[in-house]
């Protein structure tokens, strides 16, 4: 499969501060790729370089076969961008906003289709300033999709959403994937990365610390954690053989109180990888 995005040796400094120290990764067509990292790690800088907003100091970048530094209108037709914060005209309605942006593209999706995809059917004639924060973010996504792009950049798409809105957004994103779109997602929510991403890269201190499928990353830590309460105190046992330990525990002490058995989550691995970088 062709690479939708190819980054090699990307470097960027702001003055004396080197924000990106030569990162490399590639994203295949039709993949959902998650970019994780603490604030200041260089996620937004990386994404903005890929979107063509920022120039780089060194390295090569190819997005849909083109260098974003030399973005053309034809390239912009194929790329959809959702920025970190909402950027809408308050006095237009949902339909009017979508129709306005649809007019910028040569082969847009029908506005009514997009209204349905983002789940704002009931609000199609409501003015943007009457929408809730979550609804506005959905419209942001709609504006990025109305041009029917092949590649979509989503910068923290569900920040501030309540749980049910997040689930709905995840469904929408999964829907995009099944349409064959390539998606680069930055997020702070590790459950979101684990749920949606085919592969995940962790960016910390300007470097890519690890890349791989979420399942691969969590399997890096084979230990399980067993917690229970003995005489009011919490006991934690870390072991690679949880079933054997539980068996011995049961033999020795009977049914443990408040028993919990779990493996390292993506979040714990992420925190471990990025500690000291914030």
């Amino acid at each position, binding site marked *: 499969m062709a690479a939708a995005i190819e980054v090699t040796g990307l470097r960027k400094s702001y003055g004396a501060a080197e924000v990106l120290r030569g990162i490399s990764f590639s994203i295949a067509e039709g993949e959902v790729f998650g970019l994780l990292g603490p604030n200041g790690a260089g996620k937004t800088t990386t994404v903005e370089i890929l979107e063509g*907003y920022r120039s780089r100091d060194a390295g090569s970048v190819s997005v849909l076969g083109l260098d974003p530094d030399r973005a053309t209108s034809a390239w912009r037709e194929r790329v959809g961008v959702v920025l970190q914060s909402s950027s809408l005209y308050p006095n237009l309605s949902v339909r009017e906003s979508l129709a306005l942006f649809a007019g910028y593209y040569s082969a847009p999706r029908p506005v009514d289709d997009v209204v349905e995809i983002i789940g704002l059917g009931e609000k199609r004639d409501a003015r943007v300033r009457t929408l809730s924060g979550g609804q506005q973010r959905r419209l942001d996504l709609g504006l990025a999709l109305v041009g029917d792009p092949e590649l979509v950049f989503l910068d923290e798409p569900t920040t501030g959403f309540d749980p049910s809105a997040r689930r709905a957004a995840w469904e929408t994103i999964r829907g995009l994937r099944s349409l064959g779109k390539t998606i680069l997602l930055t997020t702070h929510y590790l459950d979101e990365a684990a749920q949606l991403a085919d592969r995940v890269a962790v960016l910390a201190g300007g470097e890519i610390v690890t890349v791989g499928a979420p399942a691969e990353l969590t399997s890096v830590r084979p230990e399980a954690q067993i917690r229970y309460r003995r005489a009011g105190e919490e006991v934690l046992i870390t072991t690679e053989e949880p079933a054997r330990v539980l068996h011995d525990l049961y033999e020795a002490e009977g049914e443990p109180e408040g028993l919990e058995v779990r493996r390292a989550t993506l979040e714990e691995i992420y925190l471990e990888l990025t500690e000291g970088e914030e």
Partner: protein
Amino acid sequence: MRLFFHELRAGQRLFWRNREAAFFTFMLPVVFFLIFGSIYGSDRIGIYKGSAFLEAGMIGYGVAATAFAGLAITLVIRRESGVLKRIRSTPLPPATYVAAVLGSTLVVFALQTAVLVVLGRVLFSVPFPARWLSLVLTCLLGAAAFAALGLAITAAVHSAEGSSAVVNAIYLPMAILSGTFFSPHRYPPFLRAIAAALPLTYFTKLTRDVLLNGKQIWDEPGSVAVIAGWGLVGLIVALRTFRWEPSQS
């Protein structure tokens, strides 16, 4: 071209739907014309009838309110809310977008001037301009120059909340000093010196020459040169400093 009109329509829709902005930008010169026209419209200002003098002045006030202040505030708000940044990620060429924003501003100013001229005729018997071609050209020149200055000033304003305060603090005193309400001939020398440095003084003078003295725009190359010069300065500054990204990016 199609994209230009598409964006221009949206620009008009956006302008008229923002009631507060539309009032300050479009209605205020008209309201002042009505109020002050009723107060001293029949008096004489120099050799001119007050209402005629005021009509020319309010066209000047209008160009500052619409082409300079209204445009600058709108663009700062759009920039700070991330709208301009988002536009840059679409295939819409930035030049087309700016042209449409300027075009929308021109439509509002043209409408404003037309309303002032019609009201002047209907309410205060100010004759329709004899030199209407010169008036049209004067308005185009003024709109272009003040829009360039408006574009230039957006780089100096860093927040959307502060934008109307800062921009109003610039254009309101300028409108008063430039003689849009009163003849600058009556000002003390110190204020006259400041007025002589302001572009609006020359635009208002040119408008008065065309509207009241029957001059053609080409009879007043001095005024034209100063207005155009200011516009050029604005254009150069704007080309160098205009930002599409919010300040806290």
